[in-house]
């Protein structure tokens, strides 16, 4: 196989993943609206298509055709770059995620670390948006979110160290294979709890949605955004949910690996697990109130950080003694 065919295959894979992910992300908004609506005893979108199935497309079209407003006092270059900076890392991460046994774009030996590194860039877009908007609400939202995302990235990363020690590799595919004897969620429950909470905070989801708290900061860092740029922020949020969910099921629930005895293709298992994980995200949004800024930091540094350190220590000890 020469370089040209390889490049072509890679290109096709990227195109497929990109298209599918964008579509799924768009329909995630529909799913969220529907699920929350039914939790709240209402119907949700019903008008566009059967049970509102075409709603995301209508929304996308609406946002696309809307006037693109750039505030006159804003820093225009940074203002335009910010939504791109938010969206691009969320999509780049898909390059190393394993979707099934043999469907993935690429596998690198620092896979998980690359995911962490790339997704840490999302905070840039948020900070840039908050600063460039030249609005106090946006700035407060950006400051909150910078502090929140930086802190919770640490817990997220530390929570992943436990499963990593068991898997002995950063390669996502190898991590999945290491769980053939049992999912890491059973051997690493502490790590999973911390990971899940940190993932909620990383993606700015309830109960940690302070950076975009509608009722305090009027949507925080993207207050001044409209049209397509706003759609970018919106898509990035859901793409990030997909990413952390995928990382979660890859590290703790055996990724595409199924329960032995039920013959289903790996990809189906992957989708099932992903859907469950995302459902929990949406369910939480419909249930919980919002934390306050200082409480968020207290939960992180005084509860989760010691917990995750203990987890790493215990994992190392057990691995040293028994494995």
């Amino acid at each position, binding site marked *: 196989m020469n370089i040209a065919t390889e490049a072509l295959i890679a290109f096709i894979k990227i195109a497929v993943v990109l298209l599918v992910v964008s579509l799924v992300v768009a329909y995630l908004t529909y799913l969220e609206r529907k699920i929350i609506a039914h939790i*709240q005893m*209402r119907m949700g979108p019903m008008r566009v298509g059967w049970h509102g199935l075409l709603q995301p497309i209508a929304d996308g079209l609406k946002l696309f055709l809307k006037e693109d407003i750039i505030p006159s006092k804003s820093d225009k270059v940074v203002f335009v770059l910010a939504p791109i900076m938010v969206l691009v890392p969320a999509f780049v991460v898909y390059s190393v995620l394993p979707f099934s046994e043999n469907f993935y774009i690429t596998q690198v030996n620092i896979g998980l670390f690359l995911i962490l590194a790339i997704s840490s860039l999302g905070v840039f877009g948020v900070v840039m948006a908050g600063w460039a908007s030249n609005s*106090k609400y946006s700035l407060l939202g950006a400051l909150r979110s910078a502090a929140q995302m930086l802190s919770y990235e640490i817990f997220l990363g530390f929570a992943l160290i436990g499963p990593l020690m068991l898997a002995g590799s950063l390669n996502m595919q190898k991590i999945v294979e290491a769980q053939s004897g049992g999912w890491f969620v059973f051997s690493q429950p502490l790590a999973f709890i911390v990971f899940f909470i940190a993932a909620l905070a990383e993606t700015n989801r309830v*109960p940690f949605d302070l950076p975009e708290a509608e009722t305090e900061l009027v949507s925080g860092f993207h207050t001044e955004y409209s049209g397509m740029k706003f759609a970018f922020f919106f898509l990035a949020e859901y793409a990030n949910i997909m990413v952390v969910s995928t990382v979660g099921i890859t590290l703790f629930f055996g990724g595409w690996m199924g329960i032995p005895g039920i013959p289903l293709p790996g990809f189906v298992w992957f989708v099932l697990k992903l859907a469950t994980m995302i459902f929990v995200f949406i369910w939480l949004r419909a249930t919980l*109130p919002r*934390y*306050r800024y200082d*409480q968020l930091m207290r939960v992180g540094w005084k509860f989760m950080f010691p917990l995750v350190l203990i987890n790493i220590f215990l994992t190392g000890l057990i691995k040293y003694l028994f494995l």
Partner: protein
Amino acid sequence: MYEIEETKSEIQTKTVTGADELVVNMGPQHPSTHGVLRVILHLDGETVTDLDCDIGYLHRGTEKIGENITYSMFIPYTDRLDYIAAPSNNLAWVTAVEKFFDWEIPIRANYIRSMVGEFSRIASHLLWLATHALDIGAMTVFLWCFREREMVLDLFETAFGGRLTVNAFRLGGLEQDVPAKFLTLAQEFIDIFPSRIQDYETLLTNNRIWLQRTRGVGVISGEDAVDFGLSGPLLRASGVNYDLRRAKPYAAYPYLDFVVPTGENGDIYDRYIVRIEELRQSVKIIQQCLEQLPDGPVSCKTPRTIKPPVGEIYHSIENPKGEFGFYIVSDGSETPYRVRIRPPSFVNLAALKKLCVGGLLADVVAVIGSIDIVLGECDR
């Protein structure tokens, strides 16, 4: 005129600050100022160091209008004061005007007045719970509360034809008897409502995040609350057992049995608990009203033109938000010489600075929610 100019400039000069302070203008268009309240916040990071309330964006000169129209024509205007609980305002006005005379209000009318008053309390508290929970981030409670509030508004529609601004009562009683359907619907509502209250409590009362957000936040002691002239659930949450339905009974309240719930700490959580308990007591009161409702006329004989004797009167009732009073000066003519409204929101809002300074930005939103203001009566 000169004074108004001066206060304006004072607000503006205050916004010029040092390096650390961030001045955030919250409102008048802000999702959690419950209308058009403008709060000028001085923030140090996220901590509130100073706070200024700017009200009056919804000023419509209701008091002045009251001086130019007759006593019965003013009833629909009271609807627009606390528009969340319109019948309650009607009740305050009609009972205030009736105090000039020695009319015999029929017992049936009094029972219906009490019942509708309690329904409006339920409607108001539901809207309060909905928006307060949404402010703190619990969005499901919002829609659940609106589901029940819709039922209450349907009840109003059955009885009076209007949903939000109902123009419920007349001087001397009611315009006409409530239809039988109203009574069956009311019975249906209070049958299911306690379980719905339980639903809200399931989501909030023991929720760890809700407790962390509300306990020990926005605390005001009983003495301070009295000094500020607070009333309603805000006062009772601080441990002061003062309810006008008990202290100066009106309508059918002397014959009804209910408990006045009080809190201990005077924080947001206690206000929440007090209001939830008031919802339960309202159900109890309505149940009693339905059981004891006598037959008979709903209106007494009133003169064609209502001309109260020369004099002045102050009468207040326990609105959902607190003491809602009217001070009326009559010069013996068809129109009042002076109408002064004592709105609970306005007085309660005065405590905002005391409740918020030293807290965090997110607490301001929670505190405003817990005070339960309606700018319609605040700005009048």
